[in-house]
């Protein structure tokens, strides 16, 4: 009896020990703090500026330094803070008031206050994973501000993994409450015939669904669906329109606006996208993406892209990529001097015109999983550099240089 009792105690102790050891071990969602320093330089040119009614320079440069800090709060929770600045100079927006110095001309930048601006933006994201790491909840709050635009946003995402983490479904919802400062073309501010806008708010509500699936040991894919409802001021207050049935009026070389663009106060967008990634071998991966979009303004679009990461050494990877995009014109788009003053809605913004665009990209990435290079208490994990060249068949083209440095806390 005594032996039996001893055996029971030993087995019971072993059970408790086993339970304790399994319940206390839990891999952290994020092992250590991570800091991403990101920056980009963007340079654009074209001859269809919306500010000057579809004609005029679209020259624009933009510098965007950004920092993203991810902090593990405990085994399950991660707080991510993302803050950035975008400092830009724009020849077209400088022509909101083209008469502030020199000869006014839609193809020449003006030097006034609207020739440059700084955008500030940031968001805080909090995510929680359950013990099995199969349920992830996250919530986000965002704020952004520039001279004539302020945005406040919030949203959340729920992600569920199952089927031994082979299948993942997610749903996300976001709300953006934006406010314009109504800034009209200078000549319309002085006009007694001009009727200003009565709304300055723009609200956007988006609902998205994601589904990803492992299809084999080398293949996985994803489908996503986004539904977006926008309402309020969906036009840009300082974008000019010239009517074909109104006499042309000039001051210097600059044609005075007949009106600003007028667009409906609601818009419903639907986008469905898919990704398919295939691990070809130790050197090559194939990444593909396709998206179909349509909205109730008459725009439909197709996007297709392919990227082939090439691992040239264990530390360096090359990223050649190609992207094709096309869209049909919005029902309310009219090129320079083709809209009639009797129409209810009109715009000469070529971002809403019919066009096709090709983008060629090339990136290089350096990764050191041992983070040997130290900076204070952080080790350099990776460096990414990328160049993209984008060209529309309407003439607009831009170059984008992006850089990213990821540091991991020790």
């Amino acid at each position, binding site marked *: 009896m005594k032996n039996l009792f001893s055996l029971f105690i030993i087995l019971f102790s072993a059970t408790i020990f086993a339970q304790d050891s399994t319940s206390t071990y839990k891999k952290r969602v994020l092992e250590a703090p991570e800091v991403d320093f990101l920056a980009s330089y963007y340079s654009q040119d074209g001859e269809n500026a919306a500010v000057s009614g579809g004609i005029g320079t679209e020259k624009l440069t933009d510098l965007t330094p950004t920092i993203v800090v991810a902090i593990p709060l405990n085994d399950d929770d991660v707080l991510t803070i993302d803050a950035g600045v975008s400092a830009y100079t724009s020849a077209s927006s400088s022509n909101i008031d083209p008469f502030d110095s020199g000869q006014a001309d839609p193809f020449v930048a003006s030097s006034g206050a609207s020739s440059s601006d700084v955008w500030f933006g940031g968001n805080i994201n909090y995510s929680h994973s359950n013990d099995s790491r199969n349920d992830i909840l996250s919530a986000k709050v965002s704020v952004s501000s520039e001279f004539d635009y302020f945005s406040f946003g919030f949203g959340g995402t729920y992600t569920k993994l199952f*089927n031994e983490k082979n299948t993942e479904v997610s749903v996300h919802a976001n709300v953006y409450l934006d406010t314009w400062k109504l800034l009209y073309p200078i000549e319309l501010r002085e006009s007694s015939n001009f009727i200003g806008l009565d709304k300055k708010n723009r609200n956007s509500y988006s609902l998205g669904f994601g589904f990803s699936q492992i299809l*084999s040991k080398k293949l996985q894919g994803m489908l996503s669906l*986004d539904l977006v409802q926008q309402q309020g001021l969906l036009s840009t207050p300082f974008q000019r329109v010239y009517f074909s049935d109104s006499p042309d009026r000039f001051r210097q070389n600059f044609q005075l606006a007949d009106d600003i663009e007028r667009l409906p106060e609601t818009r419903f*967008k639907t986008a469905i996208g898919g990704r398919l990634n295939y691990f070809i071998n130790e050197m090559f991966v194939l990444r593909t993406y396709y998206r179909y979009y*349509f909205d109730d303004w008459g725009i439909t679009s197709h996007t297709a892209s392919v990227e082939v990461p090439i691992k040239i050494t264990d530390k360096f990877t090359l990223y050649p990529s190609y992207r094709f995009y096309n869209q049909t014109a919005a029902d309310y788009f009219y090129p320079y001097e083709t809209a009639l003053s009797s129409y209810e809605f009109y715009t000469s*913004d070529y*971002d809403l015109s019919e066009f096709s665009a090709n983008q060629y990209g090339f990136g290089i990435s350096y990764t050191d999983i041992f983070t040997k290079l130290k900076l204070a208490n952080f080790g350099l994990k990776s460096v990414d550099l*990328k160049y993209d060249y984008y060209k529309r068949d309407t003439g607009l083209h831009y170059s984008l240089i992006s850089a990213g440095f990821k540091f991991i806390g020790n």
Partner: protein
Amino acid sequence: MKKTIILSSIFLLGFLNSCTVVKEYEKVNLNDPDMVLGDKPVDRFEINAQAYREAASGANGGKTGGGCGCN
């Protein structure tokens, strides 16, 4: 609206398609950083530029409307 319903239905059909289960120890290739079904942090600027210059946004992991004076 009809188009939305049709596309949503096609999307939901994907949920019914259950594939072979790949075990954790067989995911070495799938766990390659380049196999991630999303964009790298450095890609955000490219997505942002496209959101400004193109009328269609959404379903690309980027902004889905709002937060900027873009289309």
